[in-house]
């Protein structure tokens, strides 16, 4: 059972997550029947499963919550903020009980009582069925053989409840010696006969040790679809001292059965499957049915694979990581194969290399896809944060999320949680004003914090937007000067000024609050985002609000790149940002030599010569290529000696020693074992802008 216990705990945790979502949504839509049902259902499921694994503390507690929710479902109780708050607290409490080694501790009991007390206040009185009677089938008073007469008249439509009368008779026979009389008089002639109708009345005489209730229990499922009379004809004698005898022995001693009968009955205690076999239940048609079943199961499995409903298995993320690693190596080896095959004019080798290339691309995409997770789950986690924070701060805030389906590499998502928490806290604490202030400013009473995710080239952009007071440029700047973060004469762009709030030790809040404003944490944001190869951009309008945009790479492991050469060194430009590849003619080179501009689709675009950035300035090759790229800083031409071609790139980290290297995001190993560096175009173009404005 332990393996199920683990499954239960995992599932329960998932359910608790769902519950939280539902509750928070319910708070916004207290009348939503579906949500109420869903909340009830989750609680119900938790209780049901907990009961199976002896989480008695959880069962008892959830039972009470469930019965309150049942009242809500029945319309006897309405959804209030207090109810949701209490249910949320209950959710947390269940979570605590689940995580603790035991779900019954003095603390948890007292917390349960406390919460139940709160619920009682809310509802008047809660049915507390904690001292449930033991389940049926408990110790029965010892009894001896009695004779019963049973009259059983099934309803005519009894088959429509799936009832199997044969099974019923068998069960009865198992209780003891049973003689059966079938009254068939009501069976009509063949013409009027409906095989779906039950026409027979039955009478049984049963000699059994079973009690009246046990006999009646045989009919428990059909009670409502038959007439049933069970009469005790002869009550069993108590024979002192005989209680220890086994049923079979007594039966034999009374001459009711023969020893052979006993053996037969004992056989029936074997596993059901075996009994079925022994009873000759498995026949040719069973074999056919099994084959049919196999086919349908296979179909079912295929359908589950493509089905819309999520059918998931759990895989340790380390396993995925190692899969991605292997795929990365495979891609590298494949690149080598392609390179070698291109050197030989062997059609079959070339075909094979192409096949391997296609397969490994597919495999790579699939493997990467496995690690892609929608950001929505992360978003929805913040509902609680926003809610709790607004309560603490006395602000009224609506959290909006958009683009939750946007997928990011799991490793990126995992690292995104903390930065987002800090940013949201910051928006709520410093951004959104108090209701009073908002009204005075002519705004809606409720502030809005939006989380928006969207694709942008090879990146995902996540925005944290608020409609609060906006950032105060002057205050940030003067504070930064005060703290020595910025020189007195230094001129900063707006974005640079705003980014100061992410500096360690920086906080503009006039008073330090519990929520944020200690200046701890915001610097974590920029550190984490940068470690993910992402960047931060902040815009803000005074009085209107701020938007913090995080631009993140889709994945950390593999990118499609354009392999280029400068001198003897090779570099990779992320393909997603490449717009076009052109030849930079000598004339063009001369034409705008000073300004370093070229014409692209009707407008003048600046270019950057990597040779100048990375190597000597002077000796320009005869011909150069120009790669037109879309970057954060606009469209730029990147001038290289030669464009070699598309390249699938497994990104290798350059390690600690190159941690501060800004223009390169990593390296990759080429098919021939040499390496190429992957360019960070955003940084390169930003640097070029700075250098050109500085007149270098």
């Amino acid at each position, binding site marked *: 059972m332990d393996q199920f216990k683990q499954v239960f705990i995992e599932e329960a945790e998932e359910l608790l997550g769902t519950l939280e979502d539902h509750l928070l949504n319910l708070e916004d839509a207290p009348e939503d029947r579906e949500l109420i049902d869903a909340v009830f259902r989750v609680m119900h499921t938790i209780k049901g499963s907990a009961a199976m694994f002896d989480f008695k503390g959880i069962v008892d507690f959830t039972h009470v919550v469930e019965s309150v929710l049942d009242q809500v479902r029945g319309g006897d109780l309405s959804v209030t903020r207090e109810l949701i708050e209490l249910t949320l607290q209950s959710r947390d409490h269940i979570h605590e009980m689940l995580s603790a080694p035991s779900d019954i501790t003095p603390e948890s009991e007292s917390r349960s009582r406390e919460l139940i007390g709160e619920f009682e206040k809310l509802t008047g009185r809660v049915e507390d069925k904690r001292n449930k009677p033991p389940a049926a089938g408990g110790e029965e008073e010892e009894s001896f053989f009695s004779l019963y007469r049973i009259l059983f008249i099934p309803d005519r439509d009894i088959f429509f409840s*799936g009832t*199997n009368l044969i099974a019923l008779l068998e069960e009865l026979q198992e209780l003891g010696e049973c003689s059966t009389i079938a009254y068939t008089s009501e069976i009509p002639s063949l013409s009027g006969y409906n095989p779906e109708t039950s026409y027979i009345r039955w009478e049984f005489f049963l000699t059994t040790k079973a009690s009246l209730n046990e006999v009646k229990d045989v009919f*428990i*499922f059909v009670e409502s679809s038959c007439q049933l009379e069970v009469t005790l004809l002869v009550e069993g004698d108590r024979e002192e001292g005989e209680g220890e005898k086994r049923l079979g022995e007594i039966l034999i001693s009374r001459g009711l059965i023969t020893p052979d009968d006993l053996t037969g009955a004992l056989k029936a205690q074997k596993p059901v499957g075996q009994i079925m076999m022994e009873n000759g239940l498995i026949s040719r048609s069973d074999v056919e*049915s099994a084959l049919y079943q196999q086919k349908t199961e296979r179909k*079912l499995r295929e359908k589950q694979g493509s089905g819309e409903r999520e059918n998931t298995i759990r895989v340790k993320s380390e396993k995925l990581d190692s899969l991605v690693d292997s795929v990365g190596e495979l891609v590298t080896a494949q690149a080598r194969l392609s390179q070698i095959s291109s050197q030989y004019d062997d059609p079959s080798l070339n075909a094979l290399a192409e096949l391997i290339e296609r397969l490994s691309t597919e495999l790579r995409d699939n493997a990467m896809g496995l690690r892609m997770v929608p950001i929505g789950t992360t978003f929805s986690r913040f509902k609680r944060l926003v809610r709790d924070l607004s309560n603490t701060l006395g602000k009224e805030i609506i959290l909006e999320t958009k683009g939750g389906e946007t997928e990011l590499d799991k490793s990126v998502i995992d690292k995104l949680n903390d930065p987002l928490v800090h940013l949201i806290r910051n928006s709520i604490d410093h951004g959104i004003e108090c209701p009073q202030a908002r009204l005075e400013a002519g705004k809606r009473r409720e502030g809005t914090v939006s989380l928006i995710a969207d694709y942008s080239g090879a990146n995902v952009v996540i925005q944290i937007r608020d409609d609060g007071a906006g950032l105060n440029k002057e205050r940030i700047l003067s504070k930064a000067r005060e703290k020595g973060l910025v020189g007195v004469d230094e001129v900063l762009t707006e974005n640079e000024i705003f980014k100061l709030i992410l500096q360690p030790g920086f906080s503009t809040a006039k008073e330090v609050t519990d929520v944020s404003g200690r200046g701890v944490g915001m610097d974590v944001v920029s550190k984490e985002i940068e470690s993910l190869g992402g960047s931060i951009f902040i815009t803000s309008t005074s009085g209107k609000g701020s938007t913090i945009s995080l631009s993140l790479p889709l994945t950390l492991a593999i990118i499609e790149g354009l392999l280029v050469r400068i001198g003897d060194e090779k570099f990779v430009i992320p393909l997603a940002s490449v717009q076009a590849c052109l030849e930079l003619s000598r004339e063009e080179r001369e034409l705008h030599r000073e300004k370093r501009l070229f014409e692209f689709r009707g407008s003048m675009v600046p270019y950057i010569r990597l040779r100048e950035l990375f190597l000597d300035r002077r000796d320009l090759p005869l011909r150069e290529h120009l790669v037109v790229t879309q970057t954060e800083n606009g469209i730029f031409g990147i001038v290289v000696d030669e464009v070699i071609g598309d390249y699938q790139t497994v990104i290798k980290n350059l390690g600690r020693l190159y941690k501060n290297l800004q223009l390169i995001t990593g390296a990759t190993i080429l098919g021939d074992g040499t390496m190429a560096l992957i360019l960070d175009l955003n940084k390169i173009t930003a640097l070029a802008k700075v250098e050109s404005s500085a007149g270098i």
Partner: protein
Amino acid sequence: MKQILIVDDSRTVRDSLKFFLREGGYEVLEGSDGVEALDVLKTARPNLIITDVNMPNMDGLTLLENVRNSPEHKFTPVLVLTTESQQSIMERGKSLGATGWIVKPFDSQKVLAVIKKVLGG
């Protein structure tokens, strides 16, 4: 081998039922709610359906109605899983054509006993 379709939105319940049933010598099909179950029933003809009541998308009682209204499955026994002796649910279930019920929490003996009651030894 007899085939049983279990319908429950709780993976825990499905997994444990599946375990018990396989131990008992049954083949097991699964669905996580009524909609999925009906999908399974399009191609499969289980000897028994065991369904939970409270499930998303389609609850167990609606599933039951659908089963009873389908020509292929109208006689298929259906056992309803209930948490306690929820009399009202049992009664509604019966009136909709449930064959019987299994009360949660259950253990393997209880489950197999009820199934035997319905399917016969």
